[in-house]
């Protein structure tokens, strides 16, 4: 069995070549994943810093730390950096890049050079974003709503829109690579319905990226033309329509929520199966639910426009379609919990994140149904209720999934085990800190506190103090993995090929894997997650 491979002196992708050039010009999907890991972690830290400043300002009702225009730039840059440079690329470009070829038994992605190019395109976009930041940032909100952004804002709208435009190309390159790899490079015996659910999730995500990102690109081009040349496409004073911008923007940006959450759902399916030692309940339904979410996600964008002057008839259609998304999402949640039933459940760190995801995503998803209801949305639109809702989905969902996956595959990535004790402490801090930060925002939002203001009435202070206290706990929870994962790369115990006793092709090669992933070409003879046919392997970690 390949699980016996533990000799660290053998060649692997980490020691196959040395020197900075071997990393910066690598075409190995695993090394590119690590380059992405470093880059997205930097952006996550910068975005987190903005979040910390926002929370500090909101500790007191008075706007006493920053001026309103600076506050506008803070929340805008927090949103832009977190969404375009962390949440969208995090799971596909880091975990997907590393794990997808291993999961399908391929030597690499289909287009290794395009993969490297996607990283550098991402870096160029990131540098433009940082350049815009140094030059004053942007104050429109990450949604760039017109005509303020196009005609009136004197901040770096064009530069930031250009950064988003370029980042989109990076996403598309990764998506093309994933789609072609899944179609063309699966190991013999790995039929479509034997593929791990993570692969299905990445595949569905790639389709969304391919279909939606070009619309964002052309929308941002129109915005840049409006902002720099005052053409007036979205300016009502010149016969343009600002609501058209919202339609085009959300045609991408609502599916973008699924670009963020679907890969996390794929991770959770892997974790729930591995730590319950069971095949995911209703595997086929979970596959179709991913595809349904990808499809339905394209039909619901108008729920962002309920109070923007959109026709109430269109609003009613969007409301119904939005509620439909709850069905495939619920299929996933019910199937994960059904998988836990009578499973041999263990509570290592990745599973803690998975369980956290299920709970938090459920709250995020259900409050999404509130917001899909036109009457209720009119009441809570642009309040902290919305802020809490999307953070439950994006942070409670995507980041929990990302951290769960990062811990799960860390022994494979680094060849080392991380300290389980500290990892559990960190998972606990993240869960407690997250809820303390964002649950009060549901209440204060429902009570009427609007988002995007640097000052607020004193009666809301208690909720904001809770939020800020929670944010500091959450920040500590995020800081710990950066420390102990980095530490483990040098000092961690050596990881065996399969520390979790999990099934899947990625666990049948060494940790860390050789440059071309497998010493012998793998052949798949079983369905995914066939724990019931395998002898129980020891869990080392």
């Amino acid at each position: 069995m390949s699980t016996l491979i533990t000799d660290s002196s053998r060649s692997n992708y980490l020691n196959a070549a040395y020197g900075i050039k071997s990393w910066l010009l690598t075409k190995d999907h695993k090394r590119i994943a690590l380059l992405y890991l470093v880059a997205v972690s930097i952006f996550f830290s910068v975005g987190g810093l903005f979040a910390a400043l926002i929370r500090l300002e909101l500790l007191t009702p008075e706007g006493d730390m920053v001026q309103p225009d600076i506050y506008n730039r803070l929340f805008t840059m927090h949103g832009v950096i977190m969404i375009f440079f962390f949440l969208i690329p995090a799971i596909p470009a880091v975990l997907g890049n590393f794990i997808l070829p291993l999961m399908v038994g391929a030597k690499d992605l289909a287009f290794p050079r395009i993969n490297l190019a996607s990283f550098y395109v991402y870096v160029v976009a990131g540098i433009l974003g940082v350049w815009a930041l140094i030059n004053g940032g942007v104050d429109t909100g990450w949604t760039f709503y017109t005509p303020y952004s196009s005609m009136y804002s004197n901040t770096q709208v064009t530069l930031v829109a250009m950064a988003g435009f370029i980042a989109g190309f990076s996403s598309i390159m990764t998506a093309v690579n994933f789609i072609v790899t899944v179609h063309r490079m699966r190991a013999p015996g790995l039929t479509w319905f034997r593929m791990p659910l993570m692969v299905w999730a990445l595949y569905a995500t790639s389709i969304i990226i391919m279909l939606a990102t070009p619309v964002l690109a052309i929308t941002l081009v129109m915005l840049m033309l409006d902002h720099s040349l005052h053409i007036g496409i979205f300016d009502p004073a010149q016969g343009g329509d600002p609501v058209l911008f919202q339609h085009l923007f959300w045609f991408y940006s609502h599916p973008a929520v699924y670009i963020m959450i679907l890969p996390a759902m794929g991770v959770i399916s892997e974790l729930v199966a591995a730590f319950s030692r069971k095949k995911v309940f209703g595997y086929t339904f979970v596959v179709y639910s991913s595809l349904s979410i990808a499809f339905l996600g394209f039909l619901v964008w108008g729920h962002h426009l309920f109070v923007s002057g959109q026709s109430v008839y269109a609003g009613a259609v969007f409301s119904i379609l939005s509620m439909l998304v709850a069905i495939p999402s619920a299929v996933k949640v019910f199937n994960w919990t059904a998988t836990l039933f009578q499973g041999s459940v263990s509570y290592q760190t990745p599973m803690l994140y998975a369980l956290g995801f299920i709970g938090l995503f459920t709250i995020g998803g259900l409050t999404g149904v509130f917001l899909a209801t036109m009457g209720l949305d009119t009441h809570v639109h642009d309040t902290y209720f919305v802020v809490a809702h999307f953070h439950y989905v994006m942070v409670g969902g995507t980041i929990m999934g990302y951290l769960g996956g990062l811990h799960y595959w860390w022994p494979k990535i680094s060849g080392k085990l991380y300290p389980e004790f500290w990892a559990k402490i960190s998972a606990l801090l993240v869960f407690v800190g997250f809820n303390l930060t964002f649950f009060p925002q549901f209440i204060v939002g429902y009570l009427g506190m609007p988002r995007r203001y640097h000052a607020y009435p004193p009666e809301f202070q208690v909720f904001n103090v809770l939020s800020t206290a929670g944010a500091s706990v959450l920040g500590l929870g995020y800081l710990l993995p950066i420390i102990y994962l980095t530490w483990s790369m040098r000092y961690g115990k050596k990881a065996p090929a399969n520390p979790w006793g999990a099934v899947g092709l990625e666990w049948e090669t060494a940790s860390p894997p050789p440059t071309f992933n497998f010493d012998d070409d793998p052949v798949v003879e079983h369905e995914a997650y066939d724990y019931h046919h395998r002898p129980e392997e020891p869990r080392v970690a």
Partner: protein
Amino acid sequence: MSEHHIVTPKTYITIIAFLFALTAATVWVAFQHFGDPWNDVIAIGIALTKATLVVLFFMHVKWSERTTKLAVILAVLFLVVLLLITMSDFLTRGWLGVPGS
């Protein structure tokens, strides 16, 4: 296989001649007055025809395998979704009489 299909120069020249002719037609249409909304409809129709020719011949989709054709059809389908649903807003805004509008 699609990548082995060799397109003759004659085909390319014919297609590019069509594209130039359609461009000329676009310019001619722009100076005519067919009445609202026919100028737009004709211009968009010509543009769609040109795009179809480029996709089929210059991008070799005509000779590609079914998966590639499916990808192209899917992209067009989603463009239709974008346009149709967006129009469902613009076309129904006036249904609810708003005083002053």
